[in-house]
């Protein structure tokens, strides 16, 4: 039987606020355990939550950027369950009335087509703390630094049909929240993670199959692996006549498999009800209009602009707009390079990305700034140096030896474009290689390349390659 995979993702994005969603404690990552948790985060008797207005603004930005409805009235609800790292015994979340609902996002597929993924809802909630099972022999440590960290949980429609689509969707959301500046998207620190709901159905069937939920996946690679494993597992079950059990599963990144965590029967009854400590969030049109004005240019619009403004290919524009920082870098470099779009694109995606990847670096702290790269590209454009010499100059710039012009000057890398000088070198090469000259003139035309190589070598790569070609052709054929 042919099976169709049905996937819905719940993405938890940590919002980039300075303080927590319901308290004034800082949200900085990596502090000593329990140093960033105030009385409210600890859930001490008598304390009350106060909503951080910043999270509302950020959620509204996300809603506007995903063609969603930003609810004029949304309500915080308590999700009740006991766990040691959940200080109050309930998580403040949104249930029946989320702040954002009914939107969509278009993703690009490998074949170049695009697909629309529905966004069911996005709601605000607080994160729990962390239980530390290591290093406390037989006991569990509780770190409440994370408790109360603001999250936006983005729930997709079950529109996703493969692991690849899931990754494309997750990457698109990741890029979007970073464009909006509402999350740093740092996956190692847990600022961006997802749960995947996966089910299978015979191709052509409308009704959904029984789903399994895989919890807490924190990398794009793991999402792909987890979904592929789960699809295989479910298909195997179904084809052998067994059934899929509705349950929550965990992805084991070391063994590349999912494991059962709890079944539907063991699932908590969360006893949601509106949190009486918080008023409903009421937003009016004026507020939304003000937020709309702060929206930056979004990835899709920026991509289209790069194509039309700089003549880039769709592919190049998509790569360059995959993150706001990369796109910012590219645009600054293009400007410094006098508008040489394609050349800049090639360099940013080629030499620069290669160097960054090698060094585990990040575009935001690249040793070669956008302005500096643009300065180098200008020298290619005006013929001062060749593309090949430029790579040599780039390496020197990467090592911090200064701006392109200084390096070219100091190392004498300026391209030789003086015809008589090049002609002099050519004549010398022809004189020194009579045998090859004879063979060439005897019909072995592939020796042309040999002469080019010799001339370039003699000029230490500085001879203008175009002129070398022209002059060599003229002198050889005369």
């Amino acid at each position: 039987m042919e099976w169709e995979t049905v996937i819905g993702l719940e993405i938890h994005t940590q919002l980039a606020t300075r303080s927590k969603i319901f308290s004034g404690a800082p949200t900085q990552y990596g502090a000593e355990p329990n140093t960033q948790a105030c009385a409210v985060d600890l859930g001490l008797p008598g304390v009350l939550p106060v909503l951080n207005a910043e999270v509302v603004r950020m959620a509204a930005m996300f809603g506007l950027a995903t063609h969603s409805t930003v609810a004029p009235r949304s309500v915080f609800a308590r999700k009740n369950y006991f766990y040691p790292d959940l200080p109050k015994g309930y998580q403040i979340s949104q249930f029946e009335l989320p702040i954002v609902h009914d939107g969509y996002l278009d993703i690009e597929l490998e074949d170049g087509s695009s697909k629309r993924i529905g966004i069911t809802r996005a709601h605000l909630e607080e994160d729990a703390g962390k239980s530390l099972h290591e290093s406390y022999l037989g006991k569990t440590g509780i770190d409440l630094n994370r408790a109360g960290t603001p999250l936006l949980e983005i729930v997709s429609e079950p529109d996703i049909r493969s692991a690849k689509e899931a990754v494309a969707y997750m990457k698109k959301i990741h890029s979007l929240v970073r464009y909006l500046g509402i999350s740093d998207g740092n996956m190692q620190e847990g600022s961006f993670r997802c749960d995947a709901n996966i089910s299978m159905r015979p191709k052509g069937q409308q009704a959904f199959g029984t789903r399994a939920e895989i919890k807490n996946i924190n990398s794009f690679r793991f999402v792909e692996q987890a979904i592929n494993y789960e699809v295989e597992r479910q298909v195997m079950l179904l084809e052998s006549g067994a059934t899929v059990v509705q349950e929550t599963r965990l992805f084991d990144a070391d063994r590349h498999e999912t494991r059962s965590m709890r079944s539907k029967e063991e699932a908590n009854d969360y006893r949601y009800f509106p949190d009486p400590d918080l008023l409903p969030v009421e937003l009016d049109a004026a507020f939304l209009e003000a937020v709309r004005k702060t929206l930056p240019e979004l990835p899709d619009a920026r991509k289209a602009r790069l194509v039309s403004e700089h003549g880039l290919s769709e592919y190049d524009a998509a790569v360059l707009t995959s993150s706001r920082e990369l796109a910012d870098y590219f645009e600054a470099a293009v400007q410094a390079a006098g508008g040489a779009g394609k050349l800049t694109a090639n360099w940013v995606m080629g030499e620069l990305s290669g160097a960054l990847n090698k060094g585990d670096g990040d575009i935001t702290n690249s040793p070669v700034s956008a302005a500096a790269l643009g300065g180098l590209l200008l020298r290619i454009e005006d013929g001062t140096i060749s593309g090949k010499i430029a790579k040599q100059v780039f390496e020197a710039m990467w090592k911090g030896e200064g701006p392109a012009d200084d390096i070219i000057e100091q190392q004498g890398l300026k391209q030789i474009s003086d015809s008589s000088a090049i002609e002099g070198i050519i004549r010398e090469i022809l004189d020194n290689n009579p045998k090859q000259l004879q063979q060439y003139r005897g019909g072995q035309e592939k020796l042309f390349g040999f002469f080019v190589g010799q001339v370039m070598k003699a000029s230490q790569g500085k001879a203008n390659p175009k002129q070398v070609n022209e002059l060599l052709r003229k002198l050889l054929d005369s």
Partner: protein
Amino acid sequence: MYQKSLVELAADLQKGTYSSEELTRACLQRIRTHDERLNSFVTVTEAQALAAAQAADTVIKAGNAGPLTGIPFAHKDIFCTSGVKTSCGSRMLDNFIAPYDATVTEKLLGAGAVMIGKTNMDEFAMGSSNETSFYGPVRNPWDETTVPGGSSGGSAAAVAARLVPVSTGTDTGGSIRQPAALCGITGLKPTYGRVSRYGMIAFASSLDQGGPFARSAEDAAVMLGAMAGFDARDSTSVERPVDDYLAQLNEPLQGLRIGLPKEYFGEGLDAAVGDAVAAAIEEFKKLGATVTDITLPNTHLSVPAYYVVAPAECSSNLSRFDGVRFGHRADNPQDLQDLYTRSRGEGFGDEVKRRILVGTYALSAGYYDAYYLKAQQARHLIRDDFLQAFEQVDVIMGPTAPSVAFKLGAKADDPVSMYLSDIYTIAVNLAGLPAMSVPAGFSNGLPVGLQMIGNYFDEARLLNVGHQYQQVSDWHTRSPRGFE
């Protein structure tokens, strides 16, 4: 001096008749002499009180005294007090010392009031007789075989017994008004949102409201003026200036429109209580008020709605008492489940457990719509009843409680009959309205309370009405025998 009102004491302090330290020592002596019988205090903070009194004396000498500077008060043990145990009447918090002050604590201490101690209460404010306290029941000074009412029983008994001039309470379903009535003193539950709930240990968040106990409306006005106000730390507190509650006390009641809901005078009301209330209403007529019969047709929904909403909220509010971070923790827990079940099993008393169970059930999947949602709908109907009534009248009056103080143990094993002792007070909390109980006579030597319900933020009018009544009656000046 323990018979004097807050206002008189403040005047004497400013005149230098005696110092705050002397007054404080006198209160401490009263507590030592009488409270062993009453059990109205969980903690007496003698050292802190004397230090605060001395500080107040300096302020008074410098001529910077306010109306509460140097005045001793008793604080319900539900308000967090930095460095002083806040037990909430529970074994669960017998070891809990808050690292911060509740907003109400902060305001009263900031106004120069001297905290004498923390008062006994029903466990987590769940009860109407003060019998559910881990620290044992409080006795009513008018008859030590009867209850003082609850949940703020200790605060009410301490003021009635002249141990302190004023105290604080909280009212979720009548926990200020009912003990005020049973102890023969004045107690005011403000509009929901008027007094900050920050640092007040939550029972039912949408109903809880702090307020004062005093022996007169005038003293209650001074207390409320200090306790009320917007607090950015409580999202449900209302951003609205606090009225000058003293300024309106002397307004005449000529033309005041009083409504008497027929539902508050029906079956279940003790006849003698009804008679006392009727006599009080006659006094208001003499003061120029007009009296109209009104109806609050959804009154019968209030007890059932309350006993869904309050337990539902409490079941969630009390989840934080899990033995993990503070409060009672079972010895040698075997695993997490054992830690939870034994810590909570040992830490909570029966009434608290009963309400957690009821609330958990009411919020469960499949029951939420039938119980919680229905109760919220009932709340709207109850509120609408009041709003309609306030189109015709200025103040609604009736008995605070259906009977005078009942015997200790009489209702302890019958939760439903206990719940019905709040039948006239609960609707006010469901609607979020302000209401006050003032002494209005006696039945068999036990005090009767008259309840006055006002429109939203109409505390100044309630205090005015109460004060004018107290100008023509002397019930509030009477002391229980043995405490004169």
